[in-house]
């Protein structure tokens, strides 16, 4: 890329935050306008006064002497006026001249100001246009989008939020796909039982009543399983069968979540350490534990300062697994700690826009942890970071809430 002075300037300019860019732009325009006005007015005033004073000066040869041929040839214009009217005529004329000049200058300044702002504002709007084109074109993968570096802070935040949102959708979609595959898979077993029974019975040349009852029993059992599957698909089942427990590797889960949240953490330059053990496993509902961990780590990121650190660790017990998420961020006040699990309770109301998020994370986490039969605890000190600890037991039929 050729480094023209314009592009060098543009790069420099773009490094400022959007707000500063706008301020700078306005200052430049006003300064230029002001300078133009000042210069032209000063010039105008100077020249007008001088001019007027000159034309109104009284000639020293004012006496008329007969017989002087020299003096009679050239009649002197003698204006005998008093000082007051002289002043008022001069002022009037000055006023008219000034008004005309001001008018012209203003128009001129406006035009220059317009040209300047049109030119400079391009610097501001171009990166925004480029970003929206990049995202709406839909041809870039999420990893490519993530890799793009935005020139200033506001765009960088926006970019991170968009990529995170895209990633969330992606993961939700993947979860749904997996769910469908799992359900389809479960159809095979009951269908296989019916199929085999019918195939074998079809070949019999003579059947007994016992054969008949056996066939009925098989179809009965298999159909019951299929009915359960249908319920699962429709999401109507609110009992334990809605929890589809499987073995989850804690390390992998945390690593995937960190990856998912990387646009957010990169933006704030936050380091997230995955200190969970490779050998730690949980038998639980994967969707729930995914949501829990994502919420906890996301909160840590949101409440951390620039360059902060988040540490995720785990302890395996006989009954399940304890997972801890610690950060060295802004922390939570003792008073707020008690109310933190209430929905919509936002710790520092004035900070809500700054930190982002919607404040719904922890109540959801608590509800899910309870559903899985676990516990959650939170320790924090204002200014000294926060530590959230959850315990999730391995899935057992009768222990789930």
């Amino acid at each position, binding site marked *: 890329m050729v480094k023209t002075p314009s592009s060098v300037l543009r790069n420099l300019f773009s490094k400022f935050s959007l707000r500063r860019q706008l301020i700078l732009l306005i200052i430049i325009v006003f300064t230029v306008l002001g300078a133009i006005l000042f210069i032209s007015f000063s010039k105008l005033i100077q020249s007008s006064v001088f001019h007027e004073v000159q034309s109104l000066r009284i000639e020293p040869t004012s006496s008329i002497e007969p017989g002087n041929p020299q003096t009679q040839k050239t009649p002197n214009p003698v204006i005998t006026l008093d000082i007051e009217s002289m002043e008022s005529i001069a002022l009037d004329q000055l006023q008219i001249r000034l008004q005309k000049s001001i008018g012209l200058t203003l128009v001129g300044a406006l035009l220059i100001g317009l040209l300047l702002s049109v030119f400079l504002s391009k610097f501001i709007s171009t990166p925004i246009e480029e970003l929206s084109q990049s995202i709406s074109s839909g041809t870039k993968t999420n990893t490519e989008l993530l890799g793009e570096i935005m020139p200033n802070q506001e765009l960088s935040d926006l970019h991170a939020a968009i990529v995170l949102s895209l990633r969330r959708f992606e993961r939700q979609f993947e979860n749904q796909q997996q769910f469908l595959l799992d359900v389809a898979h479960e159809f095979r077993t009951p269908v296989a*039982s019916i199929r*085999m029974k019918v*195939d074998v019975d079809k070949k019999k040349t003579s059947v007994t009543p016992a054969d008949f009852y056996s066939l009925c029993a098989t179809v009965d059992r298999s159909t019951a399983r299929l009915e359960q599957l249908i319920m699962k698909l429709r999401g109507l089942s609110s009992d334990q069968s809605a929890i589809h427990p499987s073995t989850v590797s804690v390390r992998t889960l945390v690593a995937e979540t960190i990856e998912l949240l990387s646009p957010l953490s990169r933006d704030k330059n936050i380091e997230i350490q995955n200190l969970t053990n490779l050998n730690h496993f949980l038998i639980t509902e994967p969707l729930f534990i995914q949501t829990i961990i994502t919420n906890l780590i996301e909160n840590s990121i949101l409440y951390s300062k620039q360059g902060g650190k988040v540490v995720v660790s785990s302890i395996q017990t006989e009954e399940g697994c304890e997972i801890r998420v610690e950060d060295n961020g802004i922390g939570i006040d003792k008073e707020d700690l008690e109310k933190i699990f209430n929905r919509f309770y936002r710790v520092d109301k004035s900070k809500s826009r700054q930190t982002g998020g919607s404040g719904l994370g922890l109540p959801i986490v608590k509800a899910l942890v309870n559903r899985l039969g676990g516990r959650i605890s939170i320790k924090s000190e204002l200014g000294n970071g926060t530590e959230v600890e959850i315990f999730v037991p391995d899935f057992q039929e009768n222990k789930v809430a």
Partner: protein
Amino acid sequence: MRILLVDDEEDFSDSLSEGLRNEGYVVDVALNGEEALFLYDLYPYDLILLDLNLPDTDGLILCDKFRSINPKVLICILSARGEVFEKIEGLDQGADDYLSKPIHFDELLARIRALWRRNLNVRSPLIEVGQLSIDTNLRMVYIADSEIKLTAKEYRLLEYLTQNIGKVVAAEELILHIWGEQDALFSNSVRTQISYLRTKLRKAGVSNPVIVTTVNIGYTLVIE
């Protein structure tokens, strides 16, 4: 043929084993890996029908174990895991065939016959043994063009002797592979069946092959 069916679904394995017995096979059912290995140790099996999702182990691990104990046993996987990569995994692990559930019984029968032929190095379902033509698909035996009617047991007996043509097959082996253990372990049943078979063959005019008795040892199908 003696078959070991390893599957934890009771409905499925009950119907399947019943169907296979109706076809004249001897079937043992194992509901988990431990039972399967125990039975495998106890009896000689020609074919294993193996499910992969077992409660105490993964079928692929069992497959490996079966192979290492007896490299010549036939293994056919019957599994709910039907994805292509899963089939590839199963076959590469050493299975001879792979069927994904739900399975059609007749298809399974045809595949079992195909596997049996492969083991014999017989490619065609029609086997010529001396004057006899054996159609292994339809389980019919002919001399010239006329059919020799055999009972299920007689057919299996002839088939097994053909499988081991020229070799002496012990009566006990015949019992294990053709009668199962439900029937009493009397070599009398074998002797009787051999005698019936010989009679039928003779009556049909078959002079080649012949069933030769080696006293106290076993029987052999011999071609001249």
